[in-house]
């Protein structure tokens, strides 16, 4: 976010200056701002643009001994291999569905939570609610998966004990393809809804109180006020966060999915990012998996452009 602020600060300067000489003068005058800009720029150059150079190995037969430049070009072979692979359909399907369901189900929940927290009159209670819901955010992924394993264990887990108490037979939650996506998304919601609602709560507090007053005078009920005042007030924030979410649509959840994976749930837990890790890093197929990663990023970029354009047309809010 820092760089966004700096950009915003610099933009009017640029517009005013226009020609080269004047720009330089302006830069000298506001050198402190430009110095601040250097850091994020270096970050992007070194960590985000620099590695792009290595992307060429997706079209090469990378051999570490020969280095990136010395490895022979082989064109689109790795892509063809991936598209022909038995796992292609499954990987793409799982990656898309897991993320799509996450977006559909998990995205609105923090908004509801934020509305509830701001609408509650008792300040102590709303503070409690807020704190309790955002504490899980600080638990590491490994511990979360450990908690899931313990709670859902077929022999000793409380969930299955409860099922048994009601006369059911224990379910092997962690080892079932059918349950995987629900457990993954459900635990994600539990862990992150509080944290994500913070930004909405902040946005809600920025909505002009006069609007609520006016709505109240006109006799609008609570729900009506939420619908006509609160929600429209935070739509820009919602749209921006949606676009950001789509921005890492294809990549989220790598560690957690990897930790939850086993042969029995692989049918629905095998996703592109974990496949890239197990095949690329563990088996040393760098070129092949770079191609897969590149393909993954292309899908992601397309999605992002589509959503951004859609947002600009419908809500006049977009990233660019």
């Amino acid at each position: 976010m820092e760089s966004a602020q700096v950009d915003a600060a610099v933009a009017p300067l640029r517009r005013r200056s226009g020609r080269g000489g004047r720009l330089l003068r302006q830069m000298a005058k506001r050198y402190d701002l430009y110095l601040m800009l250097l850091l994020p720029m270096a970050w992007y150059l070194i960590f985000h643009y620099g590695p792009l150079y290595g992307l060429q190995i997706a079209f090469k037969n990378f051999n570490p001994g020969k280095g990136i430049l010395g490895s022979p070009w082989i064109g689109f072979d790795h892509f063809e291999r991936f598209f022909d692979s038995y796992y292609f359909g499954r990987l793409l399907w799982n990656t898309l569905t897991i993320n799509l369901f996450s977006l559909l189900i998990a995205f609105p929940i923090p908004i509801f939570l934020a509305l509830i927290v701001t609408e509650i009159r008792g300040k102590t209670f709303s503070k409690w609610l807020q704190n309790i819901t955002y504490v899980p955010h600080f638990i590491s992924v490994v511990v979360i998966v450990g908690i899931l394993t313990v709670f859902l264990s077929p022999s000793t887990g409380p969930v299955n004990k409860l099922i048994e108490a009601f006369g059911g037979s224990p379910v092997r939650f962690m080892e079932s393809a059918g349950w995987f996506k629900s457990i993954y998304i459900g635990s994600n919601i539990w862990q992150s809804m509080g944290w994500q609602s913070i930004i909405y709560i902040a946005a809600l507090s920025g909505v002009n109180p006069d609007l609520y007053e006016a709505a109240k005078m006109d006799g609008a009920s609570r729900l009506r006020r939420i619908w006509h005042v609160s929600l429209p007030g935070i739509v820009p924030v919602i749209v921006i966060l949606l676009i950001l979410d789509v921005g890492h649509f294809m990549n989220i959840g790598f560690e957690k999915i990897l930790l939850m994976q086993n042969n029995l749930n692989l049918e629905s837990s095998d996703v592109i990012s974990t496949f890239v890790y197990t095949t690329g890093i563990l088996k040393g197929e760098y070129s092949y998996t770079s191609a897969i990663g590149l393909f993954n990023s292309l899908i992601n970029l397309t999605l992002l452009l589509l959503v951004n354009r859609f947002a600009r047309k419908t809500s006049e809010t977009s990233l660019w």
Partner: protein
Amino acid sequence: MRKPWKSSAVSIAIATSLVLAGCSSGSGSDSKNKGNDASSTPSASPSGVSASGFPIVPETIKLKMFTRIAPVNGPFKDMPVFQDYEKLSNIQVEFIEAPTDGFVEKKNLLFASNELPDAIYRSGLTPLEATRYGAAGQLIPLEDLIDQYAPNLKALMEQYPEIRAGITTPEGHIYAIPGIVTLAAARTDKKWINKAWLDKLNLKVPETTDELYETLIAFRDQDPNGNNQKDEIPMTARAGQPGQGLPVVNMMSGSFGLDQQLGYNINIDNDQVQIWMGNDRNKEMLMYLNKLYKEKLLDPELFSQKEAEYLAKQGSGKTGFFFDQTNNNFLPIQDQYVGIAPPTGPNGDRLQAQTSPIARDFGAFAITDVNKHPEATMRWIDYFYSDEGSTLLRFGREGEHYVLKDGIPYYTEEYSTAENQPKITPYAGGGAPHIISDRVASYINPPQVQEAQKQLDPYMPKVKYGAPMFDEETAQRVNVLRNDIDKYYEEQSTKFIAGALSFDKWDEFRSTLNKMGIEELQRIYQEAYDKTKS
């Protein structure tokens, strides 16, 4: 390696957000490809490396080695073998230790980024990795060095010609040297059954797979440990690592006429190589294991348990039937268990299919192209291929860690516990480059284990072919094919056994294997086999 690029493409698109910082590892792979081509042959004069005797070098040299450290081990620098050997050889070794978890990842990144140590020790290189990194010039060819500077290893290779055949590429190079096991009992996992339970329930040792089934049912239902609880685990096995097969399958396959030749799921009949994964015999075996699983005779944690959990189960006395090379993990209750012969299967097959070749641990040691003292390094490692060196490695110092009885070393009482013993030797945890002969095996081959091995001996395959060495291109092709096939096979087998996939789908399973190119793979193995025969 991968993550930065992925997030970069995304981040360019949403260039305002620092939210997706996801950059973990650096982008080092490109920076260091200078001048490997020139230095791949050791041309520097062997500066005063003595051809025999100690010290190896007149002036102290330092070497960096990358190694794997098992959870049971202590730090390598505290091990008596490395402390004493440093003084003896005048070579200082600094070990870069990576824990077993995540070791493969670190090893691969080391090669991919070309930031190599002088040698890799206990490295578990696969034949593909040895070929690939050797052809790339990152590992140097060792055959000449072995000739000149490794008298012990050379003698072993002459005594057992299959060692050389198993580690030499078609081009004639050796890029990695193996851990060598001349002791047959260290190449098999024994089949341990709870004799105390058998006696209590008046059962005899099961001779067939059907009898084994009945026995396991008795273990499950008749409370053999007498605590009025159904807490017995009739049968268990290791969970296995992705890409290395399912241990429970490997342990039982011999009873169903499924051998494991050429380091893979292969039967050899009249010189015909057959990959048996789509075979009806395999279906029969998986159905049998599925029956055991359904009846809760097989440990429900079979596919998920960690190594430590499995070892703890061995020592708990609650297990009826399991597999391991030694009795070291259940020493306090060792009297309860005996080793048995493989049960006879429904078609009369009785084979101990799971057994390793003499060069048991492929790729245990390799020298990289940045090493300035390859001759000295070769001499350094060669010592461990003598009984004397192996004794030092496995047993430490005489008097302090071991005593000699009839010329054979035995741990002192303090160091014969499962707690202390693995701390003083790098062999515990497997895969160390050295010789394991009957001279250094008092701990892993006590009478009980010898007895268990005797049960297996009559059923060992007549000839055991190790994994063949392919040329680089073929190795690459095998890798492509096996990545898909092995992953598929392991996943589907797990599901067949656990009942998550019905055997109605067997034909689909077979046809998918065919689609993945199992016939091409079989052809490649056939060719490799034909070459070793001729």
